[in-house]
């Protein structure tokens, strides 16, 4: 049972909560329905003509990837929220989005690895080398390199000029996680490209290539999105990480440790939540005076300003990458020469 309560003067009760949930649900349903992959749109994006059998195979492959993405993202988000509730930490936008992207990454990857059909005695394969660079978007390596460079560069700057307490451990962990995600994303892309190709004729190979390219593209965007979430996290933390000076009767009398949030003052009292989530209160002796204000002090203004700027850009970028990962199936695969026809050795001499 949800009890009505007052938040900042507004009555929020069961009806308001249910209406909000319904609206968010409808919006999500509309977004998911509007982005449902269909063989016709996939074929149009890649300039393919599909016969009935191939259309059925494409539909099945697109549905598998779609379900993997949606279920992976949703499950990961629920786990992240449950973990936050269990550990008593506040919900964070970057952590939530990073969880969705990580779930998307894993869900798409798992959807690609289906058991190969039972092999016959005679097995055929194309000798065309499939390379990951032929399937992922152009400049993918540059984008990934720049994002990772920014994450590592800012993390090092923050550690050198402002990180204290828990951040001395958390920031390197986030930076190392960024490297791990890049390695994992690359490995998944390679595995998708090297997956067994069931047929070798040219039309089938083009369809197969387009499906691989959409999966590789989705994994690439999810990888970049997770990196951007990491940048947003260290950026916003770097921008806000500093001791809080508390003024009593116009003079700074004491400090709150970095990481304090939800600071509320009233007369001689000040309440705040520390980095571990515990709520504290402190009372100033009446003889000293009233609390007149507080402000956050930055150990390094440059780190704070750059951090705020990066957090803003990376936050927006992560949302856009998530959107691109969801729409990867609509994008055409990068241009690549068509596979060669099988040839007999020339009868008139080697060419």
């Amino acid at each position, binding site marked *: 049972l949800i009890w009505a309560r007052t938040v900042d003067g507004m009555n929020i009760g069961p009806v308001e909560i249910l209406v909000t949930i319904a609206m968010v649900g409808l919006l999500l349903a509309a977004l998911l329905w509007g982005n449902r992959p269909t063989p016709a749109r996939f074929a149009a994006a890649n300039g393919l003509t599909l016969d009935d059998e191939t259309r059925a195979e494409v539909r099945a492959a697109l549905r598998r990837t779609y379900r993997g993405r949606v279920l992976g993202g949703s499950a990961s988000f629920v786990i992240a929220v449950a973990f936050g509730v269990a550990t008593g930490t506040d919900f964070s936008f970057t952590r939530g989005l990073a969880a969705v992207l990580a779930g998307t990454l894993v869900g798409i990857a798992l959807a690609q690895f289906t058991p190969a059909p039972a092999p016959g005695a005679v097995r055929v394969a194309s000798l065309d080398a499939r390379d990951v660079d032929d399937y992922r978007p152009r400049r993918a390596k540059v984008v990934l390199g720049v994002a990772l460079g920014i994450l590592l560069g800012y993390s090092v700057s923050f550690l050198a000029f402002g990180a204290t307490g828990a951040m001395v451990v958390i920031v390197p962990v986030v930076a190392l996680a960024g490297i791990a995600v890049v390695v994992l994303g690359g490995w998944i892309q390679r595995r998708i490209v*090297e997956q*067994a190709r069931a047929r*070798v004729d040219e039309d089938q190979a083009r369809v197969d290539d387009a499906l691989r390219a959409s999966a590789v593209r989705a994994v690439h965007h999810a990888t970049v999105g997770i990196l951007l979430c990491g940048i947003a996290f260290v950026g916003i933390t770097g921008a806000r990480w500093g001791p809080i000076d508390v003024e009593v009767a116009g003079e700074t009398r004491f400090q709150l440790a970095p990481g304090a949030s939800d600071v509320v003052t009233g007369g001689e009292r000040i309440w705040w939540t520390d980095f571990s989530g515990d709520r504290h209160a402190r009372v100033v002796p009446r003889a000293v005076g009233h609390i007149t204000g507080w402000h956050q002090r930055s150990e390094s203004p440059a780190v704070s300003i750059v951090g705020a700027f990066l957090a803003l850009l990376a936050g927006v970028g992560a949302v856009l990458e998530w959107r691109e990962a969801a729409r990867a199936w609509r994008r055409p695969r990068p241009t690549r020469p068509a596979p060669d026809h099988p040839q007999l050795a020339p009868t008139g001499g080697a060419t």
Partner: protein
Amino acid sequence: VIIAVDISSGVPPYEQIRDQVSRMIASGVLSPGARLPTIQQLANDLQLAPGTVARGYKELERDGLVVSRRRRGTSVAEHPERAPAREIRAEVDAAIERFVLQVRQLGAEPSEALDRAHVLLDSGRIAS
């Protein structure tokens, strides 16, 4: 360019890979510098163990037909030994003779068999 491996034949799969690739290099179907699939890719496509494909590649490398580099994969050597045109013609003639013999032994209509052979050659498939 298609490669086929028959695991029911008495010839080990790695030898079939070596023979077919070396034939394609010798005839010029695979040109110098052409990249070959990674061991994992070809093993997945042929549903063979990676070690089998690796052995085939290793023998090709030993014969000086392909070059393997750690980060760039395996590619056809820049100056592989090419078979003389006469040898290539002899191999094609032998393959055609085998085809004609089997068509006759099976009692198939020659024109129909030729039409089907044309379709397969043009379509890029090796089986209908």
